[in-house]
């Protein structure tokens, strides 16, 4: 399969700090690729290197198989949707969308027809003569994408374009963005710090931390099979239990925390007995029961009291304080409504299948 974007061991340093550290990446034609990371992880620097606004210190960027070394942003087959969209307020919607075509010297009549066709495709027919400030947030977003896609770029870069929208619209635009990408078939490279955006939208996600990729994979792989503690902690909600590996049995590790809580989890990577480790258990992996006997026999069973209820419709959860160690555990509530009447301070039992919890050797980065 053709690779639309190949980033080859790219490094960018600011002083002694490497914002992007010998990073390589390939994005297949027509896919939706996200780079997910906390702010300051270097994802914006990486995107700007691809767009051509920043020259890398080392390494090369190839777009559509062609090296971009020394190619300025206005000559790259790449367009970018900016964080605050950067629509030109001094121009009409039509002039915004037609700007790139006009710069390429496309005849006026052709610009007009291509702009109109593009606006129709993004669901804004007849908006050509509108001013930018007459548009809603979602419409601006579509104009920004139309403005880039009308140039038929090999690659569309998106720099957290949903960040400025309110929650409701963001949810809506997420779906719209995915549909637009499927419609146009253009390769999208999307950067975000919002894991839900990355998971919902992407074919592949790279989780970035401190200038490097922690893991690249499908959203499902990142969620169910994280390869590093950072990914486990960053993608999706997770209960983190830090302790020491007491015993190793095949691929299972028994983790004991400093205050005496012992849990079993599947080891990821090499772990030796006595290592400092971190175990992660997803809230939805943990079963909850009023009567401990209801829990599956294979589960490790614990008991605790409800510390607080986090009702959020289908995403509802409870924080439970384990009886012996006072450790706080987040547990997702089953959607059957069976625990709708759960009260704070109620005694409950909980347990989980050790094979669905995962354990990593600590590298100290998580303190």
């Amino acid at each position: 399969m053709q690779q639309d974007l190949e980033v080859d061991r790219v490094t960018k340093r600011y002083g002694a700090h490497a914002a992007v550290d010998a990073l390589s990446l390939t994005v297949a034609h027509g896919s939706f690729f996200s780079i997910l990371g906390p702010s300051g992880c270097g994802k914006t620097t990486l995107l700007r290197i691809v767009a051509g606004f920043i020259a890398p210190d080392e390494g090369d960027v190839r777009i559509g198989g062609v090296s971009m070394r020394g190619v300025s942003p206005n000559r790259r087959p790449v367009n970018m949707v900016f964080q605050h969209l950067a629509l030109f307020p001094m121009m009409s919607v039509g002039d915004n969308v037609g700007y790139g075509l006009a710069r390429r010297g496309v005849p006026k009549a052709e610009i007009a027809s291509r702009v109109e066709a593009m606006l129709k495709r993004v669901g804004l027919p007849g908006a050509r003569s509108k001013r930018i400030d007459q548009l809603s947030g979602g419409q601006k977003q579509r104009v920004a994408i139309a403005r880039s896609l009308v140039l038929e770029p090999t690659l569309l870069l998106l720099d957290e374009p949903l960040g400025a929208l309110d929650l409701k619209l963001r949810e809506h635009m997420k779906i719209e963005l995915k549909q637009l990408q499927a419609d146009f078939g253009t390769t999208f490279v999307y950067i975000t710090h919002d894991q839900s955006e990355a998971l919902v939208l992407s074919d592949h996600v790279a989780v970035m931390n401190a200038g490097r990729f922690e893991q690249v994979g499908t959203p499902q792989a990142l969620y169910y099979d994280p390869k590093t503690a950072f990914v486990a902690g960053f993608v999706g909600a997770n209960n983190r239990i830090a302790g020491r590996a007491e015993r190793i049995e095949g691929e299972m590790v028994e983790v004991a925390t400093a205050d005496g809580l012992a849990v079993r989890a599947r080891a990821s990577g090499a772990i030796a007995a006595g290592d400092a480790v971190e175990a992660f258990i997803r809230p939805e992996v943990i079963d909850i029961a009023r009567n401990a006997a209801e829990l599956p026999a294979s589960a490790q069973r614990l008991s605790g009291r409800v510390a607080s209820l986090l009702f959020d419709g289908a995403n509802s959860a409870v924080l439970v304080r384990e009886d012996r160690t006072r450790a706080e555990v987040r547990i997702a509530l089953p959607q059957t409504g069976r625990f709708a009447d759960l009260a704070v301070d109620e005694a409950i039992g909980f347990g989980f299948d050790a094979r669905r919890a995962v354990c990593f050797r600590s590298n100290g980065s998580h303190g």
Partner: protein
Amino acid sequence: MVSAAADPLASRARLALLLLLAPAAVWLVGLIVLPHVELAVLSLRARVAPRVYEWSLAQYRTFVDEPLYWRTFVRTATMSILATACTLLIAFPVAWYIAKIAHGRAKSLLFVLCLIPFWVSETVRTLGWMILLRESGVLPHLLVALGITAEPVEMLYHDATILVGLVYTSMLFMVVPLVSTLESLDDSLIEAAYDLGGNGWSILRQIVVPHAAPGIAAGSIVVFMLTLGNYLTPTLLGGKNSLWFTEQIYTQFITRFNWEQGAAFGFLLLILSTAIVWAGLKVTGQRFGDVMRRS
């Protein structure tokens, strides 16, 4: 009953507003409106006998009939427009550098550099130019020393010299509004235009200048007005050749004691500057209110 309670408060607020506005109002009426009414009356009367005056347009007729006057008038206007344009061309890159490229200390330093010449009086600054440019001055000698000219050249008393002086005097008033409008231009707009295939020139024309238009207009109006009404710089740097309209006004009032003629000239200058500013705003499609908010 409710309004009875609210009324004293409202009238007190109105009184406070009046008191706060009073100094400005006194200034406006006493120093601007009254003198102008007086000037208007003066300019429209003619002396027929000692202490006997009648309404007349004689002063304005003199202006039309005497080529020296209206030629000076036109010359002053063109030179002022030229000086404004030169100031804009020089100040724009300076303002761009201060607003977009310089950071932190360098930025404030550059701003101060623009401001420093204004710590000395205009007379001293103009005399500085004279020391540099006169025949026995620094620059002509330098040119001789470098072998560019055989003997010292008189650089004073040319139109170009007047322009140099006027541009120098006006720089700050152009740089300040330009810096403030350029600072409000989002860098990502420029990047977006560049990303979409724009080049330096097209971005300047389609993105930067339209955004900076109110600042450009504000700076140009201020500089144009200052230049048109400038007396010292054209007189000192242009010498007898300067033919600046303010000099004609001065001559009428002070040398000839012809206050009626001077008043008419003053009014003509006021009409000229208003007309040119109005035309400038019309041509560039700016609104006066927007522009003044920027300056």
